[in-house]
């Protein structure tokens, strides 16, 4: 048991047993300052959480959340989404042969075509996604396997990629550009969409490949090394990632979409949060007059099946979806708002009963006669 510090202060100044406060002149007073802060009497607001104060809040929350929830739910229900799995697991699926006979060093891509029908026309911009299941892009070793400086166009990292990229750092003695497991596993299926009108041959649906990656990613975070000069000379002395068929400077003929700033590549490099995810692949722009972007009817999806997923029991899908101000089809947000709003409102009613019953009881007891 140690003496407190106040004790020590007394020791400094002591020379008599008598109390020292009030002694003028020679000795400094040991009394604490009489300020609001030190005497703990700062002005303060002292709220109390009673039924009476909380009741209005509950009703307000209930009354705000329920309409928001209904709005969200209705908006979500109006979003049209179509999903088709084309992995080719079953024997009777179109891509079964491609899936079964997949080989890493085949020069010609295996092509399969999946027919589907859209029951309802899709209005406004339609977004085409590819989805993967059981693919853990959020695995720790996978997530760290990249070199952001190399992808930002730093020359030194192009020649000596970061150690985090191991074992996808060098190939045949040359540094890999782009290095790492994320880049190496780039999704390389090609999906094209054709509309089959009731009479006639199939029409190709125009797919836009720009605007699918974050603007800041494409213009700031990912930069090609050596400026916009000839990319193949900028990447000279580097090797392509092990599982790619083409090197990075041949991803697209358009120089704005080639090299590290290729939008498909950027989209892939943004690792997904969960093992079942989707990534934006193409955008189908809305038509100028009020014709639907995708009218209802028969469609065929032609796939260049390059990406093997069956070895880890993964699945591949293509998703067509319209988008609203609240994003894609997600009834959960609407339902959650309605639920929380109703619970709040119900609790408000319960508290009103309790407040009325118990507060009037205690009020009558308080006032003495």
């Amino acid at each position, binding site marked *: *048991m140690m*003496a*407190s510090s*106040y*004790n020590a202060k*007394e020791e400094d100044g*002591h020379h008599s047993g*008598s*109390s020292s406060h009030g002694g003028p002149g020679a000795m400094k007073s040991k009394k604490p300052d009489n300020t609001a802060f030190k*005497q*703990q009497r*700062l002005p*303060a607001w*002292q*709220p*109390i*959480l*009673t039924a009476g104060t*909380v009741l209005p809040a509950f009703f307000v929350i209930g009354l705000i959340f329920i309409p*928001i929830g209904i709005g969200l739910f209705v908006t979500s229900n109006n979003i049209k989404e179509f999903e088709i799995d084309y992995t080719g697991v079953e024997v009777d699926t179109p891509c079964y042969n491609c899936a079964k006979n997949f080989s890493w060093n085949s020069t010609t891509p295996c092509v399969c075509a999946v027919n589907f029908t859209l029951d309802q026309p899709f209005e406004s*911009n339609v977004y085409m996604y590819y989805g993967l299941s059981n693919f*853990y892009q*959020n*695995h*720790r*070793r996978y997530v*760290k396997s990249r070199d*952001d400086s190399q992808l*930002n166009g730093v020359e030194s990292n192009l020649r000596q990629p970061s150690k985090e990229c191991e074992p996808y750092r060098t190939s045949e003695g040359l540094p890999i550009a782009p290095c790492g497991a994320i880049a190496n596993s780039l999704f390389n299926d090609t999906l094209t969409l054709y509309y089959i009108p009731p009479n006639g041959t199939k029409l190709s649906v125009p797919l836009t490949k720009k605007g*699918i990656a*974050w603007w800041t*990613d494409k213009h*700031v975070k990912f930069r090609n090394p050596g400026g916009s000069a000839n990319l193949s000379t900028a990447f000279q002395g580097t090797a392509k990632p092990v599982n790619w068929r083409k090197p990075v400077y041949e991803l697209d003929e358009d120089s704005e979409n080639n090299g590290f700033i290729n939008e498909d590549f950027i*989209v892939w490099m*943004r*690792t*997904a*949060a*969960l*093992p079942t*995810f*989707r990534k934006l692949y193409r955008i189908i722009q809305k038509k100028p007059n009020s014709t639907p972007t995708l009218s209802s009817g028969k469609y065929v999806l032609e796939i260049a099946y390059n990406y093997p997923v069956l070895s880890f029991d993964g699945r591949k899908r293509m998703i067509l979806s319209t*988008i609203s*101000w*609240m*994003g*894609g089809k997600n009834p*959960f*947000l609407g339902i*959650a*708002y309605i639920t*929380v709003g109703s619970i*709040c409102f119900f*609790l408000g009613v319960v*508290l009103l009963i*309790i407040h009325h019953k118990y*507060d009037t009881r205690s009020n009558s*007891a*308080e*006032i003495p006669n």
Partner: protein
Amino acid sequence: MAPLQKAQIVKMIKTSKEHPITLAIGDGANDVSMILEAHVGIGIMGKEGRQAVRNSDYAIPKFKHLKKMLLVHGHYYYIRISELVQYFFYKNVCFIFPQFLYQFFCGFSQQPLYDTAYLTLYNISFTSLPILVYSLMEQHINMDILKKDPSLYKDIAKNSLLRWPTFIYWTVLGVYDAIVMFFGAYFLFDNTTFTSNGQMFGNWTFGTLVFTVLVFTVTFKLVLDTHYWTWINHFVIWGSLVFFVLFSLLWGGIIWPFLNYQRMYYVFMQMLSSGPAWLSIILLITAGLLPDVVKKVIWRAMWPTITERIQDADKLYKGQLSEFTPLASLQAPPKAGGRRRGSENQRNPRRSAAFSKKLMFTRWQRRPDYCTFTPLLRLVDGHSPHHNAYGGAEPETCV
């Protein structure tokens, strides 16, 4: 009595069946053994020298200061430290449990949910100052009421705020909040787009969303628990939240050259530019805080503790109390009532006895107004045996 005998008495009480916490007060050298033996030893700086003071845990100049030390400072200290301990465990459960839950969805590969900057700064910058200021400033009940009504100590007797039931309640609350935060974000993110331009979010945006909800939820939990809001409380609580937002904007706004990863670049801004993200943050914070608020309000209405009744009475009669405090009009220009009432007591400890006598006298004259919380105590202590003597002598209970 000999010093050894005094120490033996204290030891006897300490080892008695209930094992109470003992406190010994003394002012002379013969009290030293007793002071050392007791759990809490208090020395009075008296005419008999400084021996008792040197060996004690707390030293006071006069015996009468014991009352304020026990009833006010001791009580405040206990309330503050129990909330500090419980809150610290709670906020860290809320912090780590989502990371634990995430492992089920990332192949158990120990992938963190939050960025390293957030992991480091959570306990240092974002959530440390509010609880620190709470544990320095909180006053759940006014000082005068605490001094006048020792029965308030019953609410915290036997370490009641740090017992297993309370701790389990806080832990369950933390687990509940963590589940709401994580699975709320999970179902919102699950395989859908969050943006209005079709672009997708990644795992760092997911983690940042959960982290944002986390920081706001735990801070608002402290907001709901704070009863005494000084300017310092406002400053640190709102300041911590603002600092979190500003830090996130700064951290993700620039390609920092000293970092060897740029995974957080623009993540926070992208998250904030999505309408559903805002809506989910608001929803998850509300859903997280709802049960605790409901529990507090219902318990307070149906089974109020003495403390809570006093708080209600204090709030109810605050205005009237200041009016007939005699010293208020004499000593200083009248200001906000409640503050004045407290300040008169602290101005000079020597005068407190005179003040309380005057207050008692005044209250005698105006009995129905201030002493009405005594009937409240009567309601509460309906069953306690010593209550009748307590309630019978009305003027003393008001003192």
